């Protein structure tokens, strides 16, 4: 048990606990906030594993952008404040979900733990992996990298196009006043 092992155990416990809370809490906004804690502490885990660049990108993209997007989506869909039982499936379905989740964990652990048993990474020499990662990104992986930038552009345009979709039905309100379908659907989604 080295120092890094202990630090990783602590950070990993925070990660696993906050992940568990983010999928079990009854409050919608708390789920997103626990996800924030989970992703942030996972960035810490990447730092402990010696990948500073990945940890910082995780902080920037996941914590800074994706969780904020999720929070915005919760606000735009009128997430209820306070405990709300309607966000979960019935108990038997949750039981099956828990069994399947435990089975996934058991399967992956039974595969990965023998694979990584005894494997160690020597991270104590004072080197940084960032120059090697940068050379690999702009050398070996340059075409996937460029394709990913195209993918980001396409997904942005696609998200914009999808969110501009006007679907001409929301209850009876829009049908009676067809001119206000889009505005009505946007302003009072519940009719």
């Amino acid at each position: 048990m080295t120092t890094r092992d202990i630090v990783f155990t602590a950070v990993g416990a925070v990660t696993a606990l906050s992940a568990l809370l983010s999928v079990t809490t009854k409050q919608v906004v708390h789920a997103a906030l626990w996800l924030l804690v989970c992703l942030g502490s996972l960035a810490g885990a990447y730092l402990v594993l010696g990948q500073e660049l990945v940890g910082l990108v995780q902080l920037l993209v996941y914590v800074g952008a994706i969780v904020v997007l999720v929070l915005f989506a919760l606000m735009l869909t009128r997430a209820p404040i306070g405990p709300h039982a309607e966000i979960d499936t019935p108990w038997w379905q949750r039981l099956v979900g828990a069994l399947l989740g435990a089975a996934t964990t058991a399967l992956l652990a039974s595969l990965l733990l023998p694979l990584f048993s005894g494997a160690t990474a020597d991270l104590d020499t004072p080197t940084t992996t960032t120059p090697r990662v940068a050379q690999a990104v702009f050398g070996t992986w340059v075409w996937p990298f460029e394709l990913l930038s195209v993918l980001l552009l396409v997904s942005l345009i696609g998200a914009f196009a999808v969110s501009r979709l006007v679907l001409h039905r929301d209850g009876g309100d829009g049908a009676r006043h067809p001119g206000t379908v889009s505005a009505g659907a946007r302003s009072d989604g519940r009719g």
Partner: protein
Amino acid sequence: MIHLSLPAALSALLAGIGVYGVLARRNAVLVLIGVELILNAANLLLVTAGSRPGAPLSAGPVLTLFVITIAAAEITVALAIILVMFRRTGHIDLTAVPDLTDDEPDEPDDPDDPDDAGDPGDAEDPRAADRDGHPRDATREPAAAGEALA
């Protein structure tokens, strides 16, 4: 020095929690949170495998960066779809029975609606033409027809 079985175990744990999150939630945004947890389990496994001595081409961290980018693209499109779903149905409950019927311009008359039956201007109403199955102007959007009505 760090033993790599610890991050591998955490990765397996995160994947299981993510599967539970996908299966146990009805709110579409919270299902996406479960998907994010699964993606992060994959990322952690990539970083773990990449930090083994002798991993070629820096594949672990580079592929992790790529997966993070793909996750950003995925969640953008997914949230746009969820917002459209909310505007159309008024909720984002994934277990609700989906209403997949086509938009029908001839919806049945509502007896509670005072301005629906016995409307004197019914013959001139473009919706009346729709009701007979012969739309006056097939190329017009219903919204445009409504503006003409107003």
